[in-house]
């Protein structure tokens, strides 16, 4: 007789407690909303609960930091590594919710907030997933939530983006799933840790390849990126912000675990080379395509394509330190990217639709603090000091050179050079001399985005300059 209790111990429960908090928190949001009178400030309450939930999850997540422990019969691993990704996801979710003070109409806010929380839990699952079904389900949980969230707007663009995202993402899931099936076929196991022990076989390689296609799609690496700009532009701003970080964080966690843990050493490098190549292409093409963009969300989408290329480049060679730098840069990217989104939300006439370049004209004279904050975020995105983007880029460059991928470092520089025009176009618009008489001042009522801007700005600078070594803070793998 099987002792079922041995499969759900207290340790297991504690280990996934942040996920449980998040998931159940979403239910709390919905139920509290049910109990509220009609006239109540439902938007505020829902967001407040979600914030509490996310903060609790984040605090609880910190307690898990430590040596790796495998739970749920190897389905899930909790380690410093997963904690790092989880924290990034939670912070990103928190900041995204703050951006435009809820998604959709006010009576939809509790529902959408719940969806955000569930999506977050999907990403949290991906951060610790140790076998293929868990990966797949975490990914789908996140994706399904995002499909819905994208559509929560009356703008036809939002609907379109949801449809496109749905079709393309499902297709990519199909590829990934088929790859998973082949991996299972090649090894007879679904546990990532078991793969490395299997003898290398063509079936395994092909399975890994298809799996990586799915990964590349979720990371929006060129040429699997084509959904990104459209979806980012169409989706409500907060959703775009959310998915721009959370999807990447979750998928990177999966990719990193796969690349570091499950590949037989003999063929690991050959299996991963296409990923480095598409990362390199992403750095260049992403920035190139961003050159002529005027919509901020679309611009940040292309920028994100390039940025994720940088992050993947950090992993090149699959060195242990590279992993840390990737996490560092991802953390930096979270703040600088969300900061840019937050400023866009503040500048935009319609916070949900986002803003186009002309909205930034003369910002330095109208709202200097906002303009300088935006400049800071853009500098960070461009990899310039005094920001985390600069430090992160240095780490990535050093890591790539160290791992023998100097060509990647060179292409990174090329991409960055192109990106300067992209980011400084906005800086220029903000600081240029314009006739302020023609510009109608828009001020959003909510203070929440301001909080996000402040947090992101502080974090962007502090992460870049605070004299700590990422290696001392970030944990070992597994």
């Amino acid at each position, binding site marked *: 007789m099987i002792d079922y209790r041995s499969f759900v111990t207290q340790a297991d429960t504690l280990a996934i407690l942040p996920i449980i908090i998040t998931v159940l928190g979403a239910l709390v949001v919905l139920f509290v909303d049910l109990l509220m009178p009609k006239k109540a400030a439902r938007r505020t309450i829902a967001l407040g609960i979600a914030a509490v939930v996310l903060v609790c999850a984040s605090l609880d997540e910190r307690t898990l930091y430590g040596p790796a422990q495998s739970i749920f019969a190897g389905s899930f691993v909790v380690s410093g590594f997963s904690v790092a990704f989880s924290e990034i996801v939670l912070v990103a979710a928190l900041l995204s919710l703050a951006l435009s003070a809820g998604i959709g109409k006010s009576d939809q806010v509790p529902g959408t907030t719940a969806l955000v929380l569930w999506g977050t839990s999907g990403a949290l699952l991906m951060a610790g997933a140790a076998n293929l079904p868990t990966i797949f389900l975490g990914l789908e949980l996140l994706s399904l939530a995002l499909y819905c969230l994208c559509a929560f707007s009356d703008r036809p663009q939002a609907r379109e983006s949801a449809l496109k995202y749905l079709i393309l993402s499902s297709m990519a899931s199909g590829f990934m*799933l088929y790859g*998973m*099936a082949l991996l299972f076929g090649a090894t007879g196991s679904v546990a990532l840790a078991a793969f490395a022990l299997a003898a290398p076989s063509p079936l395994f390689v092909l399975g890994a390849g298809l799996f990586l296609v799915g990964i590349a799609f979720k990371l929006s690496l060129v040429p699997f990126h084509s959904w990104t700009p459209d979806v980012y532009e169409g989706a409500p701003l907060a959703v775009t912000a959310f998915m721009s970080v959370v999807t990447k964080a979750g998928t990177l966690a999966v990719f990193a675990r796969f690349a570091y843990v499950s590949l037989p050493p003999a063929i690991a490098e050959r299996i991963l080379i296409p990923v480095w190549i598409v990362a390199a292409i992403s750095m260049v093409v992403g920035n190139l395509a961003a050159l002529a963009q005027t919509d901020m969300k679309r611009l940040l989408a292309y920028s994100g394509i390039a940025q994720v290329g940088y992050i993947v480049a950090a992993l090149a060679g699959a060195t242990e330190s590279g992993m840390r730098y990737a996490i560092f840069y991802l953390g930096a990217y979270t703040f600088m990217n969300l900061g840019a989104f937050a400023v866009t939300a503040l500048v935009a006439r319609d916070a949900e639709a986002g803003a186009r370049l002309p909205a930034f004209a003369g910002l330095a004279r109208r709202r200097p603090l906002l303009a300088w904050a935006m400049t800071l975020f853009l500098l960070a995105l461009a990899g310039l000091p005094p920001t985390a983007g600069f430090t992160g880029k240095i780490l990535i460059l050093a890591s790539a050179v160290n791992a023998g991928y100097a060509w990647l470092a060179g292409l990174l520089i090329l991409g960055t050079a192109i990106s300067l025009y992209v980011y400084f176009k906005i800086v220029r618009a903000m600081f240029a001399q314009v006739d302020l008489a023609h510009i109608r001042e828009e001020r959003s009522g909510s203070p929440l985005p301001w909080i996000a801007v402040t947090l992101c700005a502080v974090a962007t600078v502090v992460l870049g300059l605070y004299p700590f070594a990422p290696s001392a803070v970030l944990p070992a793998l597994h």
Partner: protein
Amino acid sequence: MLVGPEQYIALSAVMFSLGVAGVILRRNPLIMLMSIELMFNAANLALVTFARAWANNVGHIFAFLVITVAAAEAAIGLAIVVVVFRKTATVDVDEIALLKG
């Protein structure tokens, strides 16, 4: 002719490819969704086959989970098609291209 896992996998690969082709060739999002279901089913077939080959029922479990996800995805996908239709009065994906460039 002996039937082994190879034949099953080949069959699943063909099904998968047909699903891919369906997504590319059709303009009707419903049929595209159906094609995606074909892809998922192809993967399921592979999973089940390999489960049999290794005598490891985790493949079955996986397939089961996939079926669940496919159901959820179909539900959401159809809902999205409906809301798109409400906004634009068409679901021809070639007519839905506001976002580009």
